[in-house]
């Protein structure tokens, strides 16, 4: 934290749900009575490109963008994307990555390769980086779409926002009829 502001960088690939996850986090901060901003770029990102969302909250937030090397927490929905942004982590920051690979079509040109041992490279930079098998957990809970909520649950342990506010916002923002299931997924992630 710098100047009392918490900065969270959520990264992934277009279509993975990065924007909804960052929306929920920002809303929880707002419900806690904090100033909160988030920023991302729409447009071409939904065509399978790189997606990043900056979320910042605290007493007073000015810039919606996190300065270089000042992300207190990075949540990556995908391994190569985690690797792409890991250098933005602040000293002593928290790094959480979903154990999931999305191999882009550009690899078929034979000129680019999906990183082998992405987690090894992540660990080399951030030894206590946390790998979450969110896809497996979601399967156990009976719905692969719960991955995002599980990841939010894992992340919530490292962020100072109240559990009841998280649950209130998740229930409000989850698709109709999935409130209870998402609550369960969040709590499972939070206890992982």
């Amino acid at each position, binding site marked *: 934290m*710098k*100047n009392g502001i918490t900065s969270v960088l959520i990264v992934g*690939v*277009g279509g993975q749900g990065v924007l909804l996850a960052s*929306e929920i986090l*920002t*809303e929880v901060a*707002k419900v806690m009575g904090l*100033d*909160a*901003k*988030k*920023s*991302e*770029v*729409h*447009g*071409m*990102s*939904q*065509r*399978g*490109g*790189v997606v990043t969302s900056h979320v910042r909250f605290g007493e007073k*937030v*000015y*810039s*919606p*963008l996190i*300065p*270089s*090397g*000042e992300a207190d927490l990075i949540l990556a929905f995908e391994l*190569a*994307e985690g*690797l*792409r942004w*890991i*250098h*933005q*982590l*602040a*000293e002593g920051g928290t790094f959480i990555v979903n154990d999931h690979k999305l*191999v*882009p*079509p*550009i*690899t*078929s*040109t*034979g000129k*680019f*390769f*999906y*990183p082998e041992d992405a987690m090894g*490279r992540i660990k080399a*930079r951030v030894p206590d980086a946390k790998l979450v098998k969110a896809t497996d957990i979601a399967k156990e809970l009976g719905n692969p779409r719960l991955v995002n909520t599980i990841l939010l649950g894992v992340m919530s342990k490292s962020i100072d926002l109240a559990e009841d506010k998280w649950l209130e916002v998740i229930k409000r923002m989850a698709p109709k009829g999935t409130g209870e299931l998402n609550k369960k997924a969040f709590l499972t992630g939070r206890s992982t």
Partner: protein
Amino acid sequence: MEMLLSGNQALARGVFEYGGEFASAYPGTPSTEILQTIAKFFKDDIYAEWAINEKVALEAAVGASYGGARTIAVMKHVGVNVAADPLMSLTYTGVGAGLILVSADDPSLHSSQNEQDNRYYGKFASIPVLEPSDSQEAKDFVKASFEISEQFDTPVMLRITTRISHSKGIVEIGERETVEHGGFERNITKYVMVPAYAATRHKVVIDRLESLKEYAETTDLNRIERNGADVGIITGSISYQHVKEAMPDASILKLGMGYPLPMKKIASFAAEVKNLFVVEELEPFYEEQIRAAGIEVEGKKYFSNHLELNVDRVRDGFIEAGLLDASVKSPTSSAEPEEVLPRPPVLCSGCPHRGMLVAMKKLKLYTTGDIGCYTLGALPPLSQIDTCLCMGASIGHAFGITKAGKTDGKVVSIIGDSTFLHSGITALASAVYNKTNTTNIIVDNRITAMTGGQDHPGTAKTLMGEKTHAIDLGALCKVLGVEHVRVVDPYDLEETIGVLKEETERDAPSVIITNRPCMLFPSKIKDEPYAVILEKCTACGLCFSVGCPSISTSEEKNEKGKPKSEIDPITCTGCTICAQVCPAGAIVPLEQ
């Protein structure tokens, strides 16, 4: 009550709260959500529409304003180029009820063909430019803009940028207030811009600008935040936020009104501080005017006009100027990034544009391109789009290259349905009139796809969800004089290649229209997925060359060590293009 709103949502909310009654726009990133928000939440109070292009949007808005409705016209920065014709004389006529032109600029070209700075249009047209710096101001400045517009009888440019449009912040919500205006009143010397009347009106504009300069000196849109006297910074828009974070000890003159500038206020601020800087994104718009007024100031020397600013770039500039200690930066701020493969945007799985692009590639055609999803066909592995300049340009490009007569090989144009309606019709009419023999392809996916699926005059539905007339593109091309109009199924490669070959060999103008809808909008389309029979796959790589995100390399390799392909059954839509290019017959429906 407080809500978390994007700049676009907050601006739409402002139009509602401050009595807006009419909104017209053509979709364009980053501005699109403004009209969508109005149509979704405020359609009982505000009429909202997609116009065929930005010029028509502004003209309709001008009519509504003359007719007594508080009005906004909304467009992305390059859209203002299209609307510049009415704008440059609208400034002479002035308005009826308040009229706001929203220009959404795109520093860093997140989704645009250039990063032009539209504040210059304010100076060019002698109209005020307001620049909000967050979501709250995006809402509040709608009120100020309507009031200035009505007080000074001028259109007002409300200039936002991508970071304002697409950042969310907390906004205080209020009730709707309305202002009474009568309908259109005949006033021929004000509204009819024939030379004699226009000459009189130009004098009005010159005098109005002087009054606006006085207003700029006193309005609380421009405020001084006094702090240390060592560094004074003049800034506005999103740059204000970066400056506040990067330079907490500096004094700031925050410009909410970016044109005309409050030069007396600037001069007195300059006198208060030892070192005066301008921090502004893109061009030295404030800086040049301030310097021209004889005030010593630095700006672009430290804060480049290339790409958007951020806290790092503001800090770096002041470190370079010797006014900030480098220790303010995070110890990891210069950490080396890992080398990771690029992940460029691609045409979606099953996109109907793919078949046409593959057919063009097969026939080795030059392809003049336009603005839309198909422009992604310029990227490898397709690399099939050869030009992209502005909306509607493809048809003129193909015409010009062909007429110049120096290029070996055939040239065709490719344009989407929405872009063709926006500004391709006139280009085609002109090409036919001037005896073209080019083939022009309209990839008609029945939606404005790149900006997220908006209706247009070919979709039979308005922004407010009403059914309406749909333009028949084929019939339209025929009345423009194109005798040979062909419709093809882009999922049938053989047919598409055959028709393309026939039409490009013909010595007459032709139009080929594809007939498959977008896979994403208005609703997702997914048929049974296909799969690769690994025993049959020879790893020739032809399926990779169609550039589909569902096809990737498998662990299996052929005898030379080349990887075979595999298909992701979850994202494959079953469009069959890869199966049609596979010479080994190795790609079949998953069920088989």
